[in-house]
């Protein structure tokens, strides 16, 4: 069969394209194979750590010339989904920086390598923040190395407090409510709650209040009480309903609240040390204090990030070597923007500023590791919606409390 010139050209171009694609695939496979032989490991690192991580990797590679580290940037919004899909599929990196709150989910699925042997005299367990290693351990092993640990504390605007005739930050819930009501005038709201965005931002605060009021955490799972749930619902949902927390809370995430605070439109809120740093950088009036509780300092949940090595990683030894390197106090301090998980790393001057001291005290003396039971995670959206329903006035505190308690019984067990 004769082929016309134009058809021949098309066939030729098609063949070139096919060969190019096939060649690329073969090349990549070969590269991966070569990389595997060369002990190249990949580390998924969040974007906020990327620059410092690059410097640390350079140092690690110079100390370990037989290991190459490939950095892959993740983001706070996407890391959970990305890691979950990678671990489920078995197509994994060798080291992952991931939220400690999600580690148990992966542990329960048997997707993580045991890192117990990394905890030795150079990295003793008792040098870590209380409970931070326990929450990534079970009877069989320890599956992460926490490197960053933090809690919320009270952030307030001293100028607005002074204008309202309030002498200092609230230390109890009653003072918190009274002060917020006094501070709510005109464009200024006493406080605000992050109901938009990640639902766990709101339930974190809800559970902080509940833990200060009789709720406990057992085996990584919250045990709520009627009283603690009612009081927490009143402090958050009731505050929005009654107007001493801004109604626009329904549109605000953590960043939105911080923006309003920087503009002097929110007088105080429960936030992280990042928010204080931002306010200081911008020259905004800011001070911090311990979180108020029912009768004194409240309880805040310690949340953090750590290093994981997937069980499916093909470079376990090299990956563990990198994690061990990153777990040294000086490297932990270098890579930590909040507080390091190791106590000995906290001596770095950057953790000792006046605005950070209440956060450090909250962390050291009035904090608990956050629950990491996946069953609680599965309840978060429900609890979040119940708090919002109270804020909207579509549920009473009692109705929302009963709904949450019933859901807790069903999901978490008695």
């Amino acid at each position, binding site marked *: 069969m004769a082929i016309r010139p134009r058809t021949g050209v098309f066939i030729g171009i098609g063949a070139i394209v096919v060969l190019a694609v096939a060649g690329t695939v073969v090349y990549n496979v070969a590269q991966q194979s070569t990389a595997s032989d060369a002990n190249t490991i990949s580390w998924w690192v969040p974007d906020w750590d990327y620059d410092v991580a690059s410097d640390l990797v350079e140092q690690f590679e110079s100390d370990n010339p037989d290991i190459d580290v490939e950095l892959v940037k993740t983001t706070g919004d996407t890391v*959970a*989904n990305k890691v*979950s899909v990678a671990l*489920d599929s078995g197509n994994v990196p060798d080291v992952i920086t991931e939220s400690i709150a999600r580690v148990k*989910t992966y542990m329960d699925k048997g997707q993580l390598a045991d890192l117990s042997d990394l905890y030795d005299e150079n990295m003793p367990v008792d040098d870590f923040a209380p409970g931070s290693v326990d929450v990534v351990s079970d009877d069989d092993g320890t599956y992460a190395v926490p490197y960053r640990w933090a809690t919320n504390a009270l952030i307030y605007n001293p100028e607005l407090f002074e204008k309202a005739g309030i002498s200092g930050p609230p230390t109890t819930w009653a003072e918190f409510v009274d002060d917020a009501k006094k501070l709510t005038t005109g464009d200024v709201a006493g406080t605000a709650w992050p*109901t*938009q*965005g990640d*639902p766990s931002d709101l339930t974190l605060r809800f559970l902080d209040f509940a833990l200060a009021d009789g709720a406990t955490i057992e085996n990584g799972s919250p045990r709520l009480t009627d009283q603690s749930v009612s009081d927490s619902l009143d402090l958050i949902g009731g505050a929005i309903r009654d107007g001493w927390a*801004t*109604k*626009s809370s*329904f*549109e605000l995430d953590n960043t939105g609240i911080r923006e*309003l605070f920087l503009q002097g*439109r929110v007088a105080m809120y429960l936030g992280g040390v990042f928010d204080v740093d931002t306010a200081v950088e911008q020259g905004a009036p800011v001070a911090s204090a311990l979180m108020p509780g029912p009768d004194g300092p409240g309880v805040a949940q310690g949340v953090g990030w750590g290093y994981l090595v997937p069980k499916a990683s093909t470079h376990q030894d090299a990956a563990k070597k990198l994690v061990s390197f990153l777990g040294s106090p000086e490297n932990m301090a270098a890579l930590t923007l909040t507080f390091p998980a190791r106590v000995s790393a906290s001596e770095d001057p950057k953790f000792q500023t006046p605005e950070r001291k209440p956060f450090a005290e909250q962390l050291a003396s009035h904090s608990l590791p956050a629950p990491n039971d*996946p069953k609680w*995670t*599965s309840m*978060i*959206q*429900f609890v979040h*919606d*119940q708090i*919002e*329903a109270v*804020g*909207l006035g*579509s549920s009473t505190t009692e109705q929302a409390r009963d*709904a949450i308690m019933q859901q807790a019984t069903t999901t978490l067990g008695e």
Partner: protein
Amino acid sequence: MTQTLQTPAVRARRGRLGGHPVALMLPAAALTAGLTAIPIISTIVRTIADGGSGLARLFAIPNFWQVMLNTVIWTIVSVLGAVIIGYIGALLLQAKALRLTGLWRSLIMIPWIIPGVVGATVWRWSLSSDYGILNQWLLDLGVIPEPVQWLSNPDVVLYAVAVVQVWVTAPFAVLMVSAALAGIPTERYEAARLDGASAPKILWYIVVPSIRATTGIVVLTLAIWALNSFTIIWVMTSGGPAGSSTILPILLYQAFQNGDQSLTAAVAVLQLAICVLFALVYVRTMTDLEEQS
């Protein structure tokens, strides 16, 4: 046209390729089928494999029926709004008095072209109770006494986000209806005018019947888009407050975020079933159209 198809050159060409069309299409068809079929089958298998517990839990979710109702309202408002604006926009673009038609046509396309996240973020800020420019305008004009809680009021929020979906998808409707209008022979308008038909009568008896098929396709396409829409609601409200703007894709993502694979698969299967219904109607409409032509 039939004669054109019968020319010797075309016949010769057909002869050369006559045995090959299926073979030529096979790689692309196989790839597409694989990429579509594998996820669908694995999702269905996952739903069945857990004994249907995911589906049972889905129907037991306290706000499940609210989510379904939200999905219906969202779809109807989004589709109706986009079709109405599409009709109006296309008729305006066809008006002889309109100058710079190309410019207007390009401007109308902007909402459809810009990334969804960007559009949704702009609208989120525009509708904000704290900073929103829309509230500021309405306050300045004395239309409202205090800021409207567009995204905080559970009675308003679903319609507010549906307006944004209309804003994004209406250009598609304008484009499709414009193309259909251009296909109406001018003789029909002239004949109607000679018979003394008024503009509304021309619209009702000439224009609407002529573009009925296109309208059907536009409605179905918009409905499928609305049913699968995620970005606008997620960026603007995350499904809140208290689930009042949660539709099926948002529920699916929430289940996925919780790592609840069986519930995720169950929501996906439900959504698939609804979309299949629309797809069947779509295919039927397309087949009818081909037969008519």
